């Protein structure tokens, strides 16, 4: 066990992390943030995606120790002051999910995309989210939702 300090959803926290622990396990088991979902546990399905200093990362292959001193944002940290993030609202509006298990990672991944590209075209969304699997087949609605959210965010 080693002490790990990082900022999680805006709050600075210090906790114990086992040597070699992955970020996903610290989030889910240590902090109870179960919105971050395990899927493949090898970085290929995207369901565990979180933002580390604003960049989308696969928390299942990210060593917990590597986020020391950094800012980590999970799906639980996207809404502000009780108001849904535009991506969350757009996923609701387009019903861009079925079982919804991939949705938190998908939304966080899309937030990472919009941070880099405020006006992503259809191909840019598809390319950026290609590392995310939706087994239910809601991809067409997800693309629509992400583009709609980006537009809302551009308008401020």
């Amino acid at each position, binding site marked *: 066990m080693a002490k790990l300090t990082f900022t999680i959803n805006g709050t600075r926290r210090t906790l114990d992390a*086992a040597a070699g622990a992955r970020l996903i396990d610290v989030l*889910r*088991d240590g902090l109870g*943030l*179960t*919105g*971050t*979902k*395990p*899927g*493949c*546990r*090898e970085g*290929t*399905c995207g*369901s565990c995606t979180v933002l580390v200093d604003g960049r989308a990362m696969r928390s299942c292959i990210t060593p917990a120790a590597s986020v020391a001193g950094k800012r980590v944002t*999970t*799906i*639980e940290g*996207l*809404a502000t002051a009780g108001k*849904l993030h535009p991506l*969350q*609202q757009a*996923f*609701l509006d387009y*019903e861009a*999910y*079925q*079982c*919804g*298990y*991939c*949705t*938190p990672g998908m*939304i966080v991944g899309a937030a990472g995309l919009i941070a880099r590209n405020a006006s992503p075209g259809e191909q840019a*969304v*598809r*390319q950026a*989210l*290609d*590392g*995310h*699997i939706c*087994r*239910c*087949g*809601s*991809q*067409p*609605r*997800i*693309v629509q939702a992400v583009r709609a959210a980006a537009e809302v965010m551009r308008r401020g």
Partner: protein
Amino acid sequence: MADLTLLVEYKRREFLKVLASGASLTIPVELQGAETRVHVRRAADGRIDAFTGKIDMGQGLRTLLSQCVANELGVPVEEVRLVMGDTDLTPDDGGTWASLTTPETVPAMRKDAAAVRGAPLREPKEWTALGRSQRNLNGPDIVTGAFKYNSDVKVDGMWHGVVLRPAEYRAKLVSAEGQGVVRQGDFAGICAPTLAEARALAAKAKAEWAYEPLPAFDKMIAAFKAEGKPPVENNQVRYPPLIRRGDAEKALATASQRRSLAFTLAPIAHAALEPRSAISSFGEDGRLTIRCGKQAPFVVRAEVAKAMGMKETDVRIIVDMPGGGFGCKQRSDVEVEAARLAKASGKTVRVEWSRADEFVWSYARPAALIETETGVAASGRIVSWRQRNYNAGAPGLRPPYDFADHSNEFWATRAPLRQGSYRALAATGNNFARESTVDEWASTLNRDPLEYRLAHIADQRLRAALEMAAQRFGYKGRKVGVGLACNLEKEGRMALFVECAMEPFRILRMTCVADFGAALNPSNLQNQVQGALIMGIGGALWERLEFDSTKQLTTRLTNYRVPRFTDVPAMDVHIVDRREITAAGAGEAGITLTAPALAAAIFSLTGKRPMSMPMRVQTP
């Protein structure tokens, strides 16, 4: 008598604490307030409590069944408190499978709700909650990450179990030794206060297995044919293994032209994104309570009771929504593993499967050999049709076409692989073989594939679906890269047109028209159909479990290609809403259209007809 409202809250909020404390979780059936469990009742606070043994796994059942109750009682959908999949609280509505909820559970819920109101069922023109796009009631919790799936459930003080697995696919346990090893039959596992401790103990344990070899794929297919048993006619079962009319053999003998085709299907995995898990706990009264994420809680209860040597009424199964099912979460497996470890340790024990466990220790969509033997008259009309499905199953055997003499047969075999349910079951393979055969005749006879299909279809709704899809697609006769398929599956009528291109192969667009009768929740229906079509791309083009002579080689998602964003074409999925016609279940049918439509398109591009799933076409 306790207020059921409290029980519902108790179930939702207090379960964890209760389970952790080891206290009894016995809730007598009588608390439901009826000898026979009811689907609907008015609670003391004036709100509506509803109960179903069905579960939601993303197909939108919490929303749809709440709509049913709200519709008959004239209340907002949000007023309905629906308890799903709890064997102590809900009626046994059968497993959540086979697109049966809409034809069976929807009418049952509506009838019971109407009875509470003391009025007949509302006519479609009086519908308030049904027949309109109701947003998924889970949506707000899904997008914020607050929604608790099966694997998100944790209990204070619970222990963690690890199951010892053999490297070989078909193995029997010979011996298992080591600190804390629990052995029962072919099961050997270990539990400890933390997962890390359990894993450390498991790593030190020694288990020996005796294993049987696995046949190569071609040998397995050959054995299906050599050992298959002819079907016995029985039209009383859900999936009759022999559907026939006239004398197909005799008609074949007199046909103007004949053709024999053989199609093969590889075994594939469901690859639901959430690995399964279960938490098992014995109460002081000896009752066993299991929280899991299975599609058929009452089947799981029966299987757990049998495995544990208990009475079914001494077992309670509580389902938390799984993150995808598609047929892989029906039978007991992880539940029994957790129960065995809970019994041996006296602790509450959680077992979660790894991704490799999901791939290897669940079951596959069955491999198959499907042969068609067909003949046409001098006019070009198909007059004789015989289709034989070896190993995969009888679902989807009934042709939507008017063939004068036909025989559609399921030949059961003994498969060397674990196989079981999968969205649409064998209907996907059966439609692939049937549609490819019809398409082959259209090509041989130089007929337009749409016109040729229509010439054999009497069903007006299927004809209308094909014609509407052709129009939306902009179909103007045969064109390189274009393929189509149709089906009448479980009372759903569907038509699909696709356009593909080569160098490299890619799907450019899909146009689908689907008629399932009344669209009870049109937006959700569209999402389901579109999703099933997309899921079908994987099985059509890439998915295949690989084995060597003893082991399954496919154990990781990186080695198993499923559809991703850049694989999904532009899609136009249109739902025909026939309000006056009883709604059919729509969770499955879409997946039966993708492979044959893609095969027809690939044939037009390459001149070679794909005869296997997955198809061998070079893709990026």
